[in-house]
């Protein structure tokens, strides 16, 4: 399978090979970035950046700090003037009126601190084209959904940090956008808030919205996203659905638990490296061509094998593998 990684030199071709069948190609349906380039003085922020987020799907946008995630997201809203390429919705270039149907949660959170929450959400609803009554109803509905109904009259600066995060989410969602773009939405959230946000995002995708969000929490992304795009130094280095990406990796993961093994035991099979030992569990990484039976046999020779798992690496490992290149 010629899935990943897309070599840097070949990144000029649309990256869609790992897309599962049935999905529209880039830019045909939902959001599409095509060959987007952007340079800031001495820094090339985006290089021929292409990926797509179909309607009803959720795409996790991964990459190390400074890779260009935020620039790509801001380009969707015209907050960054791109030098080349295009941002498309349903195959058509995105303009100001189309953007009114998009919802955005910027990396730098911010609302009007002294404006009460309810009127503020209404205002953002109206800026996105809702009528006065619709905006009021939508604001109230989101406040209720996010458990903020009794804080509608409070100024944003009076809200707790967690509630400000919810308010920010509501501001992005109040107009029921066709596309939802969230920059690091999970950063700094407690586990309950993470679960709540994940549910909201799933519901938004189920409603038919295209959802794009960036995150460094790769386990979480693996949990809630079907698809990811990985960007490094401005280039999209991999894109596709999570399972395909994992299976396409040239590595495999082995996790085993032994009883009676010497401390510091290693299978001694070529191409097998130790990832970590924790609580009696040994985690190994091997090449795809290494036969797991060899590892199992080596383990069985020295101790009793209680658990043995073999499979594709986690998304986090795939990500590190991509970054090593």
């Amino acid at each position: 399978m010629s899935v990943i990684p897309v070599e840097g030199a070949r990144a000029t071709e649309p990256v869609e090979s790992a897309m599962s069948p049935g999905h529209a190609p880039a830019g045909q349906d939902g959001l599409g970035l095509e060959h987007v380039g952007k340079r800031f003085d001495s820094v090339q922020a985006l290089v021929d950046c292409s990926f797509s987020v179909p309607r009803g799907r959720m795409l996790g946008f991964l990459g190390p700090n400074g890779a260009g995630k935020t620039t790509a997201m801001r380009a969707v809203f015209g907050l960054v003037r791109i030098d080349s390429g295009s941002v498309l919705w349903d195959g058509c270039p995105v303009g100001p009126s189309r953007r009114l149907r998009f919802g955005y949660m910027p990396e730098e959170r911010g609302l009007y601190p002294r404006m009460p929450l309810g009127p503020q959400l209404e205002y953002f609803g109206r800026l996105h084209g809702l009528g006065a009554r619709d905006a009021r109803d939508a604001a109230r509905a989101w406040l209720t959904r996010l458990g903020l109904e009794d804080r509608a009259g409070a100024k944003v600066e009076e809200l707790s940090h967690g509630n400000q995060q919810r308010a920010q989410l509501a501001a992005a969602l109040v107009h029921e956008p066709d596309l939802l773009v969230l920059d690091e939405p999970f950063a700094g959230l407690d586990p309950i808030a993470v679960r709540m946000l994940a549910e909201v995002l799933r519901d938004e995708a189920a409603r038919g919205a295209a959802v794009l969000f960036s995150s460094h929490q790769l386990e979480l992304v693996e949990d809630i996203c079907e698809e990811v795009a990985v960007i490094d130094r401005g280039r999209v280095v991999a894109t596709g659905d999570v399972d395909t990406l994992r299976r396409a990796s040239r590595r495999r993961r082995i996790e085993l638990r032994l009883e009676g093994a010497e401390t510091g035991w290693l299978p001694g099979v070529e191409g097998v490296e130790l990832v970590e030992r924790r609580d009696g569990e040994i985690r190994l990484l091997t090449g795809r061509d290494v036969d797991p039976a060899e590892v199992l046999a080596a383990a069985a020779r020295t101790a009793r094998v209680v658990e043995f798992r073999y499979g594709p690496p986690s998304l986090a490992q795939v990500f590190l593998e991509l970054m090593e290149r």
Partner: protein
Amino acid sequence: MSARQMVALVARREVRERLRSRTFLYGTLILLVCVGASAAAPALVAPETTYRIAVTEPVPQGLGPALERAGDPFDTDVRLQPVGSAAAGREALEDEDVADALLVLGDDRLVFRTTVDTELAAVAESAVRTVRGHAPPAPELTADTLDPDNGESSDAAVLVAMAGSILLLISLSVYGQWVLVGVLEEKSNRVVELVLSAVRSRHLLAGKVIGIGLMGLGQLGLVAGLTAALFVAGVFDAPASLGVSAALVVSWFALGFALYAFGFAAAGAMASEQQDAATAAQPLTVTLAAAYMVGYIAVSADSGSVLAHVLTVIPLTAPLVLPARNALVRVELWEHALAVVLVLVSIYALVRLAGRVYDRGLLHTGPRLGLRTAWRLAHRP
């Protein structure tokens, strides 16, 4: 959604949020109290005024006591001084130490030197009516001035000119800084990124300037309204042209604000932290203060000089100089027209330039932008 709707939404938010803040309400209240106090002040400082009124003979019986009684409610003392003829009365009136007004009973005329004193006019009117045994409302007397076009500005006109230009200077600075702080606030707490994801920067800028400008116009309108009401009620001793002066102050606030506000907005977008606000505003507040000072000196030295004429039409100084000069001397219609045209052209040019600086500055993070960097950013495609 149309551009107009977008601008209206932004402007409405500006107005609503500011009406919600107590600062604005207290500020307005303080201004109104100041106007009221300035009306009451003369009465407090000089609790009893003495008017000397020359009356052409024959003086009707009982006019003296009637004048005294009519003056009581105003805390004024009116002294009657008979004169042989209207010509003799005119002579008396021309000498400030002899008479404040001349009552020519044959013509039913009350003549003042240069400006009509509404209080004395009311007292004389009431006294003559009492003596003649007439009932209101038909007026008994016509107020007149000896030499209205003598080219000399009355004290009241000077006061109006000074008050008008100071009010304009303060309003332009205060509301200009509101624009700057508003822009900077949106930028420094990052809400601007969310707003700009839906609204174009020029619509945001226009809405902000219009919203804050309307607040300023409303506040000035209230002050002008109260002044006019006090004038009509006879509390103020003001020149007859006060209405025109008030209208000029209000309309030149609108033009001056439009001119300066875009500059303030660009300055706000160039700054990055709230602490920078004062520094960022400095070039504009200094310009305003300099325009006021130069205008004040030039106009008070000689309101007909070439410099005064030039300052009347230059866009940066016109908002502060034109209304003041107009209160003192007659400003020709062509000067009014030229000043308006020039300021409109400047506003158009500034909107384009400041709009670009604002647009580029808003999303620029990091240290305060210098003028040169802002200029470079503004000219980048």
